[in-house]
């Protein structure tokens, strides 16, 4: 039986929220956007050969786990990260970490999470949450999506930790073992910005980064002819769901990244970043237009100016804006 004094704070994105909350517990007030920026969480990829819920996979973020791994490493945090084959040993390891006074981050599947809102009840295996105690056979959970701290039984927790399917969490748990007293954010931030710039404009591969956005735009123009109205609309819906649904903080992480640049400008004392954070804000609003008009298309209320061609043009506009932004950002020092 143990219950740690853990601050439950909601966040826009589960993994950067969990990382920020864990660091906060260890005495460092680092905001969610800054963690997200240092962890180089922003990305874009469109992988039509991978199907998720019967539609091509679109992602606005890097691989799960990367934000925590990268941010903690760059900040000099020593972590313990474990995966398990055996269910019981995974729960024993969790108990002993809690009893030694460490709140623990877990990767879980959302389908069997009892406290999750039913509209999000999907097999999404890359969700993150914090366990901060256990009492009377229940575990105490801080989930950044949910308004209040939650509780879960031993059996349910085992089930979500060993969810099956793509990106199965395999009981993955992670927590900071020791955190330096003084953290220098400056090199970590510069490094994070460089990494994201490289991911967005430096990879010579057509399906990722800015090129990926352009590729999606080209494909989108053909959807209606190729697949018919219904399937095209479903494919579009899937892109929008990945962009706006749970855990992106809106506009496929573009808002949160802009907020990061805004904070970074003050921390680094480089005022040109402020300008770029405004450009990122405009860009994020453009993505919002895309999802807003796209949702009208899905609702079959589309006017001509909300056709696939028109939506693809918005995407090209976003790609152009992001190319300019990240080319400038890649010169940071």
């Amino acid at each position, binding site marked *: 039986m143990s219950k740690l004094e853990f601050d439950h704070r909601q966040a826009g994105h589960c993994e950067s929220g969990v990382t920020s909350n864990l660091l906060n517990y260890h005495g460092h007030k680092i905001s969610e956007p800054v963690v997200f920026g240092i962890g180089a969480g922003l990305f874009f990829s469109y992988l039509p050969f991978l199907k998720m819920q019967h539609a091509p996979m679109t992602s606005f973020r890097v691989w799960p786990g990367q934000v925590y791994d990268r941010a903690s490493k760059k900040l000099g945090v020593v972590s313990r990260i474990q995966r398990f084959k055996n269910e019981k040993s995974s729960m024993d390891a969790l108990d002993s970490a809690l009893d030694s006074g460490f709140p623990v981050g877990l990767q879980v599947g959302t*389908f069997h999470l009892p406290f999750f809102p039913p509209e999000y009840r999907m097999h999404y295996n890359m969700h993150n949450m914090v366990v901060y105690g256990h009492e009377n056979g229940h575990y105490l959970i801080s989930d950044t999506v949910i308004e209040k701290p939650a509780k879960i039984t031993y059996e349910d927790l085992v089930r979500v930790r060993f969810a099956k399917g793509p990106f199965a969490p395999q009981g993955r748990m992670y927590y900071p073992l020791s955190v330096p007293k003084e953290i220098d954010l400056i090199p970590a931030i510069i490094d994070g910005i460089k990494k994201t710039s490289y991911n967005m404009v430096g990879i010579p591969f057509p399906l990722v980064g800015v090129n990926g956005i352009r590729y999606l735009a080209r494909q989108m123009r053909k959807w209606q002819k190729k697949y018919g109205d219904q399937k095209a609309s479903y494919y579009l819906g899937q892109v929008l*769901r990945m962009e706006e649904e749970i855990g992106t903080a809106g506009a496929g992480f573009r808002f949160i990244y802009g907020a990061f640049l805004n904070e970074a400008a003050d921390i680094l004392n480089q005022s040109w970043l402020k300008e770029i954070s405004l450009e990122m804000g405009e860009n994020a609003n453009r993505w919002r237009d895309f999802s807003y008009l796209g949702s009208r298309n899905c609702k079959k209320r589309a006017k001509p100016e909300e056709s696939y061609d028109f939506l693809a043009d918005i995407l090209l506009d976003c790609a152009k804006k992001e190319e300019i932004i990240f080319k400038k950002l890649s010169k940071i020092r």
Partner: protein
Amino acid sequence: MEPSTKDKDASVQEDLVYRNNRELFYSFDKDKNCYTRKVDYQYQANQVIIKQGWDVLEERLEEIKQQVIRGEKSPLVYFMEKNQMEVPMLSGYSGIRKWRVKRHLKPKHFNRLSQDVLEKYASALDVPVSQLKDPDFLKE
């Protein structure tokens, strides 16, 4: 032509389908040039696309239901779809090999399953064995 932030906000509170949980959202205020955060229900426009996903699922489920009634597919297909699973995932949760799961999607093989195997499927799909073997919609 472009929606202003204002009319997006105005539509937020009306006709919401989902009011189960408030989330944290970031946004960018164009007029004040600043980033803001607020806790609220998912935007109305986004609720539309979330609902679209569920509607498509519902339609597919209805189609499968008819196929099960006509005896073309086993009830296992219905419950698998209801749980949004595909063969590899059901195989993972039930511990039954993929090629066997595939066989059991046909009524011929499904009807010969032992209690033991049925129980494994039932617990993977959160449904009592009696339902799995003989779903309500077959009785009507």
